[in-house]
């Protein structure tokens, strides 16, 4: 064996990479602040320097989309056939037969619990009076999912078979995951016009990537010896793939089917925003706009029921299946047919069922009573959060502190005092050996004083570059700066900062709260017993539905949007934190215990460091979730890119829609890469 390679010489400088990066950021920030009066362009990118990128993108896309329009129109005409057919079948099948079918399917997939879930779920839908609307939605899903499965599966297999295509496909899938859902819709709108087909195609496009991803992953993870055994058995490539590799990857592929179904359902409902045609998403939107929150909640619950039924039933496909007695399936089906035939004349029209209307009214009146009774308290919560937290974060203490809200006027002296205090803290920390920490404190104080939406662009770019460099070296830094610069010159910078502020605030809150809940769940299992079903539920609910409860209590506005984002984005943080903490290897725990460490010491010195990479991945997911929700939240009042995308949709402005969508994707992508870089570094440091 050759000798171990030489260890590279240690850098001479005493400063760590993090400290250097922070120091440069502080210096750039200070210069920008100091020169604000002399050179305002240092803070705010002048409008005259902006390139009309949005128009260029729009012009190009208009030209391109018009080019492919005839082909696409033909495609959409073709798709209309299966859709009308599915609509017809689902719409005209008597409801007892459909309920029987779903119950039988539930039994076949998962025995009694699934059968019960299917039965009661559909009974709820029936009782709600939204049966017809639900069937329309279901028809869309029923057509878009097969399309997504075939396209996604084909892409996954292609990437597996042609290694050269693989990295390209992976990159495209990564980008597609970060581009917000509404951004897809604008070009589709141009191609297909208004109508349900747009929703169909949008949901197929949105649902195909998870399928492709899981097919790729599944095929990749088939044990090499199984693949070799297939080769040595003398199979052709086709036989190897379809007789051995794909069946061996079935579990992972079924995870893909599950995710595909959920994505399709979620998108079909979102697509109601453009192609509303009497489906359940449209119903939610309509009632929400009319402020009929009881009904809106009822329609939302119908969606949730569908999501839960579809998710749990298709989820059983991905676990090892028991065989359930098929005679039960036939018995259930037989019974429903007999039932339908016997009571044919007496079957009520499901649209006229109003069994749950009293409940909706009760919710409405109860809500009114609740908001009236607790009005002062709720208003105080909302206003305090807005004035003392969100607003300062957004426009800085120097502008947010007014006599009207805070009771006094912010002065230059106060700014000076704040910075001086920060400098003292930073110096103290540096003296105790935490130079990086001190510098970060200084940076945070600067950001609080200025406000995120007013941050000087050189400071943001330097900060992003410094973070990227610390996380992943020069290449990542170059990538981040390059991508962010495209936003800067395209005139979307201010809106991007606004988006950054709101998602940043949400991510920060989620990280803190989610981390704590995750920690509590990890150390105390009763907490997890409560938290887990809540997390499951939050992850199953389509994005759209999150808006209803926050709207009911807090009306339209930034605070509601903030809450909706938090509710959706907090889940991964909880899950990953707990998962990381719980999965500390038993041996490490035993080693710590036998060293005489206390519970708390074990947590601090063993479990937390070991869990750090996992927790960082959770943070990463939380960031992506927050960006995804940001656009949906634009429906109830946010500013920034989300609003632009939503507006573009309303005006069919492809240039703005795609540019804003791309800007959003860039923000998400940069954040994603930086956090993943840190997680990777942590993992390497732990030797994982």
């Amino acid at each position, binding site marked *: 064996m*050759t000798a171990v390679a030489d260890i590279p010489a240690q850098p001479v400088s005493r400063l760590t990479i993090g400290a250097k990066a922070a120091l440069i950021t502080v210096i750039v920030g200070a210069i920008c602040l100091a020169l604000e009066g002399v050179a305002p362009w240092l803070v705010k990118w002048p409008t005259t320097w902006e390139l009309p990128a949005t128009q260029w993108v729009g012009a190009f896309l208009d030209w391109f989309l018009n080019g492919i329009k005839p082909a696409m129109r033909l495609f959409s005409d073709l798709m209309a056939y299966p859709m009308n057919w599915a609509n017809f079948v689902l719409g005209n099948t008597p409801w007892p037969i459909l309920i029987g079918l779903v119950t039988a399917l539930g039994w076949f997939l998962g025995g009694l619990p699934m059968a019960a879930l299917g039965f009661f779920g559909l009974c709820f839908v029936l009782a709600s009076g939204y049966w017809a609307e639900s069937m329309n939605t279901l028809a869309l899903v029923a057509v878009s999912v097969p399309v997504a499965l075939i396209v996604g599966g084909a892409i996954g297999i292609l990437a597996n078979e042609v290694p050269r295509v693989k990295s390209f496909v992976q990159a495209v899938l990564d980008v597609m995951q970060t581009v917000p859902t509404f951004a897809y819709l604008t070009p589709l709108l141009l191609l297909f016009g208004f109508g349900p087909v747009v929703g169909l195609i949008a949901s197929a496009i949105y649902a195909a990537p998870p399928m492709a991803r899981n097919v790729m992953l599944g095929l990749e993870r088939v044990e090499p010896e*199984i693949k*070799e055994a*297939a080769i*040595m*058995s*003398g199979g052709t490539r086709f036989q190897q793939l379809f007789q*051995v590799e794909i069946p061996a990857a079935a579990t992972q592929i079924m995870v893909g089917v599950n995710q595909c179904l959920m994505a399709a359902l979620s998108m079909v409902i979102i697509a109601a925003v453009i192609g509303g045609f009497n489906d359940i998403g449209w119903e939610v939107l309509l009632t929400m706009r009319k402020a009929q929150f009881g009904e809106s909640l009822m329609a939302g619950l119908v969606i949730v029921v569908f999501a839960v039924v579809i998710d749990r039933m298709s989820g059983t496909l991905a676990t090892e299946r028991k065989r359930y007695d098929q005679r039960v399936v036939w018995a259930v089906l037989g019974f429903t047919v007999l039932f339908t035939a016997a009571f044919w004349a007496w079957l009520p029209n499901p649209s006229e069922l109003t069994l749950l209307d009293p409940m909706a009214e009760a919710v409405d009146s109860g809500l009114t009573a609740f908001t009236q009774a607790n009005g002062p308290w709720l208003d105080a919560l909302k206003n305090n959060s807005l004035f003392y937290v969100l607003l300062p974060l957004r426009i800085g203490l120097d502008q947010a502190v007014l006599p009207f809200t805070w009771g006094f006027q912010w002065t230059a002296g106060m700014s000076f005092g704040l910075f001086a205090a920060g400098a003292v803290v930073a110096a103290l920390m540096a003296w105790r050996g935490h130079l990086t920490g001190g510098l970060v404190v200084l940076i945070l104080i600067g950001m609080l004083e200025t406000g995120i939406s007013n941050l000087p662009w050189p400071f943001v770019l330097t900060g992003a570059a410094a973070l990227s460099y610390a996380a992943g070296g020069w290449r990542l830094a170059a990538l981040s700066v390059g991508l962010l610069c495209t936003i800067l010159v395209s005139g979307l910078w201010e809106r991007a900062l606004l988006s950054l502020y709101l998602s940043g605030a949400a991510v920060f809150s989620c990280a803190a709260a989610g981390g704590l809940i995750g920690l509590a769940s990890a150390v105390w299992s009763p907490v997890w017993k409560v938290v887990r079903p809540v997390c499951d539920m939050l992850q199953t609910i389509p994005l759209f539905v999150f808006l209803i409860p926050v709207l009911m209590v807090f009306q339209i506005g930034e605070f509601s949007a903030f809450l909706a984002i938090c509710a959706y984005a907090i889940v991964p943080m909880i899950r990953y934190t707990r998962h990381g903490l719980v999965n500390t290897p038993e041996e490490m725990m035993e080693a710590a215990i036998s060293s005489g460490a206390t519970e708390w010491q074990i947590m601090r010195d063993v479990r937390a460091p070991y869990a750090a990479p996992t927790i960082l991945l959770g943070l990463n997911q939380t960031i992506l979730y927050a960006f995804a929700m940001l656009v949906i939240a634009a429906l109830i009042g946010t500013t920034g890119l989300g609003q632009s995308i939503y507006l573009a949709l309303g005006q069919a402005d492809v240039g703005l829609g795609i540019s804003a969508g791309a800007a959003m994707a860039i923000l998400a992508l940069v954040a994603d890469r930086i956090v993943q870089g840190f997680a990777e570094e942590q993992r390497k440091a732990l030797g994982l």
Partner: protein
Amino acid sequence: MTDANTPAIACQNLWQVFGQGADKALTDALSRSGNDADQAAADLREHGFIPAVQDANFEVKEGELFVIMGLSGSGKSTLIRCISQLLPGTGGEIRVDGENVIGASKKALTELRRKKLGMVFQHFGLFPHMTVAENVAYPLRVQGVGKKERLARAQEVISLVGLEGREDSFPRQLSGGQRQRVGIARSLAVNPDIWFLDEPFSALDPLIRRQLQDEFLRIQATLKKSIVFITHDIQEALKLADRIAIMRDGKIVQIGTPTDIVLRPVDDYVREFSKDVAKGQHAKVASVMRDESERGPDDPGLTTSMTLDAALAHCMELYEPVPVRDENGNIVGTVHPSDLAAALQVEET
């Protein structure tokens, strides 16, 4: 095509090099070093390539059980994958029944595998979605053999490995030992001439391992396949092999019978392996037999195939040369009891 003198497998100057553009790198390295394998390998390493198999030369005769032994990372798994063409092979020749398989067409290779090759894997490589019978019948299924016929054949091999009654089980319902029996049965389904076994017993418990080794020998005694068997366990190698090739860092350092390896190691590396081996249990009397006719008066009844331990037990009190007989009882040579003792002495290093 196959006559008695054609070896089942013959490898000549076989190289497997990993890295981008390995083919050209190997040609260059060989021409720079004037075809010196060691220099070429060092050269390749320097340029960032991994020469996993370097200049392997050996033959496996018809019906021979050829064991390749080495530590992990020595290139033995790579070597068997070269021969079975799971890896393409960077340079040299592999002749299976006289035909070069390196560079053979995909179709020809598939045909070869369908008719002549069988392989057993360390972690079994069973298809999780197929029952035992379906797993075993799979090599027949890909050839288009009808269901009834292939299941009948599967039943035969399943009985051969002693798994009757588990035909409809799935792999996950079996123990490790049973799984490997399925692997063995599957590899025998097409009744191949050449049988590759890649550490087939390494993942099993010691007790099960010994049991399967014995059964493997029993099966081989009736089937007489030409076998390439990979292991990292010297005991297993000595127990099973007709001949052993010892690999180190991609090179074959010695090829010989078990006795050769134990009694005449070519270098310290091989000696290190045989150090822990109770030589007396593996080396045969033939290895210390002399071609002399001068003997003492005693005849303790030694035969050529007796192990040294057994022979020594017969000669405890004897100091003069004794005769050795072959299986037929004819005297074929002489053994000095002192040679027996000397051969058994463990060298101190």
